[in-house]
């Protein structure tokens, strides 16, 4: 019976580069990964986003085979690597590439030797190494030792090394967290270009929501060991499925409201809802959706203002006493005590 079912699942899986079902990993009383289901389509770049301690790195290491699950299935490229009978393939047989948070370059091997390490004695080995070094922009540095490279260069060697054997799935664990802020922007763009060029399916783990939204095709939000939502960045930001996801991804104002179909009434007025709701709800209003105009007769009052140069964050006490934040362009100087009128652009979501 079981084998027949397994065969029936097979064709379903073949289109997905990664398919995870019911994956669970416990550490004593703590459930780090709690019956996770996740599918990644071939060629997709998926961000696994969550606060620290949510289990995202454990999930990545389960996929890689460095940890063994308590329950669940994993298949990579249509091939079961953790099968229903509980046997897990060792990491070296999973056809994965992994970029570690601290890069984990082989300190005793040169850049070339690091990149060639996974290629075995395949023909065309030297050509592949040269191709990758060119792709990551490290031509001419092949003879260098890892310690003679900067952080950004080490990162690119780690990427080239993981890509060299053409893995079915690339896993990146907080790949940008060891780079300083200035470098991070440039490296992110580079990495996306390189992954597109290699047409590889990739998952990267991050706690930085801006990084996830700007880089990934699809973002999976992980909270307390469970996948809370999987969506394209824009949908995730604008239409979070739960209050927790909305609060974690980006800044949020939650205001009590009365909903009736696609309309909700709250302290900011009558707002359009993206999804219909009814009765007493909370609406999520992103700070940048609120526009402010100075108006001495308006009911809302500025309590605090932080100036950021490009924009400013204005804290408000609304008519009913609720508090909210608005992120508005810096062309008008708001000061505590100012009276302001508000307008909300675009639909909001209610929970």
């Amino acid at each position, binding site marked *: 019976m*079981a084998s027949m*079912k397994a065969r*029936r*699942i097979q064709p379903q899986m073949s289109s997905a580069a990664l398919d995870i*079902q*019911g994956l*669970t990993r*416990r550490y004593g009383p703590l459930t780090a990964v709690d*019956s996770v289901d996740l599918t990644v389509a071939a060629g997709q770049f998926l961000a696994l986003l969550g606060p620290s301690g949510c289990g995202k790195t454990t999930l990545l290491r389960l996929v*890689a*085979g*460095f940890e*063994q*699950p*308590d*329950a*669940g*299935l994993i298949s990579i490229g249509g091939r079961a690597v953790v099968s*229903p009978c*509980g046997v*897990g393939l*060792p*990491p*070296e*047989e999973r*056809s*994965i*590439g*992994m970029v*570690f*948070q*601290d890069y*984990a*370059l*082989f*300190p*005793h091997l040169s850049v070339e030797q690091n990149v060639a*390490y*996974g290629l*075995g004695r395949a023909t065309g080995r030297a050509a592949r190494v040269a191709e990758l070094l060119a792709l990551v922009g490290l031509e001419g540095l092949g003879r260098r030792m890892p310690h*003679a*490279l*900067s*952080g*950004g*260069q*080490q990162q690119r060697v*780690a990427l080239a*090394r*993981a890509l*060299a*054997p053409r893995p079915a799935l690339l*896993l990146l664990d*907080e790949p940008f*967290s*060891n*780079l*300083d802020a200035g*470098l991070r922007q440039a490296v992110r763009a580079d990495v996306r270009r390189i992954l597109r060029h290699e047409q590889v399916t990739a998952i990267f783990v991050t706690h930085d929501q801006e990084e996830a939204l700007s880089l990934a095709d699809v973002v999976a939000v992980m909270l307390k060991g469970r996948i809370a939502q999987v969506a394209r960045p824009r949908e995730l930001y604008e239409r979070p499925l739960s209050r927790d996801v909305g609060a974690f991804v980006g800044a949020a104002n939650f205001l009590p409201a009365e909903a009736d179909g696609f309309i909700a009434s709250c302290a900011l007025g009558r707002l359009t809802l993206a999804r219909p709701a009814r009765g007493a709800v909370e609406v999520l209003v992103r700070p940048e959706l609120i526009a402010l105009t100075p108006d001495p007769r308006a009911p809302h009052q500025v309590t605090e203002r932080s100036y950021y140069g490009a924009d400013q964050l204005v804290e408000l006490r609304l008519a009913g006493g609720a508090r909210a934040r608005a992120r508005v362009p810096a062309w008008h100087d708001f000061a505590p005590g100012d009276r302001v009128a508000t307008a909300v652009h675009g639909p909001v979501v209610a929970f």
Partner: protein
Amino acid sequence: MATVDHRLTLNPPATRRRTARPWLLLALSTLVVALVVLPIGYLALRAASAGPEAWGALLRPRTLRVFTGSAALALGTAALSTLLALPVAWLTVASDLPLRRFWAVATLLPLAVPSYIFGFAMVAVLGPRGMLQQALAPLGVERLPSIYGFGGALLTLTLCSYPYVLLTVRAALRRCDPAVEEAARSMGDGPRAVFLRVLLPQLRPAIAVGALLVALYALSDFGVVSLLQFDSFTRAIYMQYRGSFDRSGAAVLALMLVLLTLGLLWLEHLIRGRPSMSRTTCAVARPRRPVALGPWRWPAVLFCASLVLLGVGLPLFALSYWLIRGLSNGQALVSLWQASANSLLAGALAAALAVVCALPIAILAVRHPGRLSQLLERGAYLGYALPGIVVALALVFFGANVVPLLYQTLPMLLIGYTVRFLPQAVGSVRTSLQQMNPRVEEAARALGRRPLSVLTSVTTPLVAPGLLAGAALVFLTTIKELPTTLLLGPSGFPTLATMVWSATSEALFTRAAAPALLLMLLSALAMALMVAQDHAAEEPLRYNGQYEGTSHPATDE
């Protein structure tokens, strides 16, 4: 319906999957630890099955004398060492002693002198035909008061082993927060009262541990007591073993010594394990302001200087004197080449064997921590913790009765060295494994390499410096080792250590001088290596910072 069915099979019960056990490592480690534990167990078995007359020997007055003599020697050495080390520790940490740093290092140097070389120096200077007697001969002095026996052994062992108390007390003194003493001063205590009421109580655990280490050293030492002819356990065991056909008597004595040693080790464990009287303030303590010695400065310097003179100067002086006399007689280098070659050969082979045996244990301890790996690692330390003569005797019994083919051969000697010094190799390999980023091994696995291939292509090259350091340490310690070589060496296989020992026993000082000097140099090298390794062992702290992703790689793009 079908999908519901799927779920049921896809979420199987939670208990069945666990990480695979590293069977190969476990098997290899168990084999090595068995090599250590079996002979010692066999010794216990032999002693237990010894005839009533062997156990009856326990009640003989001579045995009682050995027991009380050993106990007195151990206690006396511990007490005398504490009396010497305590003021030195205070002077080098808390006072304005001139050349404080120099004395801090120089007073530790006796650690680098093997005990039987101390024994040689004592006999060669103060013995019946020693330097002092010869210098005084023109004045008509024919005999000096004998240095053989309890007094000589006590003095010599104290000079060898007081640095152990010095090390522990000094470390504790550095941990004491001077603010606590200042608080006592502010409440009206004078300097003397502060020392007695505040500082000394804080140092008590450290003093106890140091004194216990010294007692263990005195109890297990063979070189000094055999050369100074004091009947403690180790000498009595050796005499019994050499002197009679029935070796069960030696086994019984050895078992008693083991029990005594284990008792002291347990006591030490208890003291160390107790919640320490460490600092209660959370802030980092201000550095201690040195106490001004005033007029006591020069007596203090004199005290340190005489200690260094006795502990380092005396052996060096004796060695040089007899070496030069021997050279001028043209007999100093007799058979030195043969002994050196033997020592080098045995040392190098033992080093290689010990490192090979240490690898699985160290990998298991670092990469697969757990109760079983801990047990195996502890087991590997057994041969190191017990007196050398006991381990050697155990292997003699085991070899003679279980594997007679190996008895009195070079392989048996090598096994003996490995059983004794395995922990040194395990320690170095362990340290370098801990310093290595485990992600690097995972990266190799992710790139498609099997575990064995990862071991040879990544792990081994990265821990090579640790392997070499461990091998060097075992090599140097092996060359110094006396009792194991004496008991397990093939007949007609003189080494540097046995040469010094036998020449000194026969008062042939010119013959002992050259190998002794060579051994002292090697042993100083071993100590330097150990110090360097202790520094390396603190490195993982630095590495962790980077691992947590808190620091950025140093170079710029």
